[in-house]
């Protein structure tokens, strides 16, 4: 049992992000209510951010802000002390993108409800066809 634990720890984040993504994807495709689909879309995007952040993690490394001890002259900065700043930078952009899409999708939902008075996919299809 005890050799199984490191294996789980080694890949746990990556299995979990796949499960989260699949929850989001399932909600986007199978759910009937438009708002639920939008929530599924946001969970789908947040799962990818989880994947990127878990790439950048290093065990017992501190947050990516330089310690005052390292800034003294002549002190060489060891890369293993800090986590990977690049993935954090990329994920700031991904969060902004997911908020922008989420805000715009909510505006669309308000607009659709104002015109059709329903947010259910099947009722919408009926009202569209008549």
């Amino acid at each position, binding site marked *: 049992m005890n050799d199984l634990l490191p294996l789980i720890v080694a890949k746990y984040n990556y299995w979990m992000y*796949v499960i989260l993504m*699949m929850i989001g994807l399932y909600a986007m495709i199978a759910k009937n209510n438009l708002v639920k689909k939008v929530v599924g879309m946001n969970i789908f995007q947040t799962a990818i951010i989880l994947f990127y952040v878990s790439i950048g993690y290093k065990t017992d490394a501190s947050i990516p802000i330089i310690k005052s001890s390292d800034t003294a002259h002549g002190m060489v900065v060891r890369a293993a002390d800090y986590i990977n700043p690049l993935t954090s930078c990329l994920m700031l952009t991904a969060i902004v993108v997911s908020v922008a899409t989420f805000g715009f999708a909510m505006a669309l939902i308000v607009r659709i409800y104002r015109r059709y008075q329903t947010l259910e996919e099947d009722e919408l299809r009926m009202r569209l066809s008549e």
Partner: protein
Amino acid sequence: MKFIALIVVSLTGALLLYGTAEFPDWGDPSSPASLHVSNYYIEKTYEETHAPNFVTAVVTDYRGFDTMFETAVIFCAGLGCFLLLRDFTGKKEHFYRHIPTGVILHVKNGKKKLTTGKEFEYMDKDWVPHDLINKTVCRILIPFIQIYALYVVAHGDYSPGGGFQGGVIFGSSLILFAISYDLQTLVERIKEKILGILAATGVLIYAGIAAICMPMGGNFIDYGKLAPLLPAGSHVRALGMLGVEIGVGIAVMAIMAIIYINIVSEGRHDEGL
């Protein structure tokens, strides 16, 4: 429909899990992702840009081009909400209650609004009457939220935070103002025109600072070339980053307010949550 979804989900899930088979372990410092480029950032950032926070240095300086387009993305969202929801016609009829006598006035397509207060009270199914405790607490709280937001923008280089997070906090203080009072007071206090101008100028500040580097002889986002413009002896790149952060903060603050106002009032900017 649910059956197709299950098939698609299980297929993509299997593909992704197959991909993770040969991943390096989670968190080991010798994985290729944390060796190649990210070591350069960790070792060289403080020397070159004098900014303690690596992430802000990478976001605004090394990969500043990405962040400019990220700000353009949030600008597109705000503009999209404005274009989609805004209707200038506005509601025609308004209801007022004359408080002393209790008579309800039905004003048809009145351009002029009666002054609510002692004499008249606004009556509308969306209009939420002011709650005294809520109003006073928020009136005390909002200035401190805004100061905190300015702190977050200003200290982007030193502590976690930066233009985008500060802008969102400032925007949410405006939203808190709209919720605690009512949307009408926020729209009167901060005109839609000012929000529109602030949103565009914020992103323009970012793109402008980046574009000024070109006539100064550098490539597109080369803050180093801005040295002649800034006081001598200052850390040019750190100041360039700060200027860009301020631009992002202004833009995001205005855009959060625009999106909220348009969603909550269905574009009529009269009554909302």
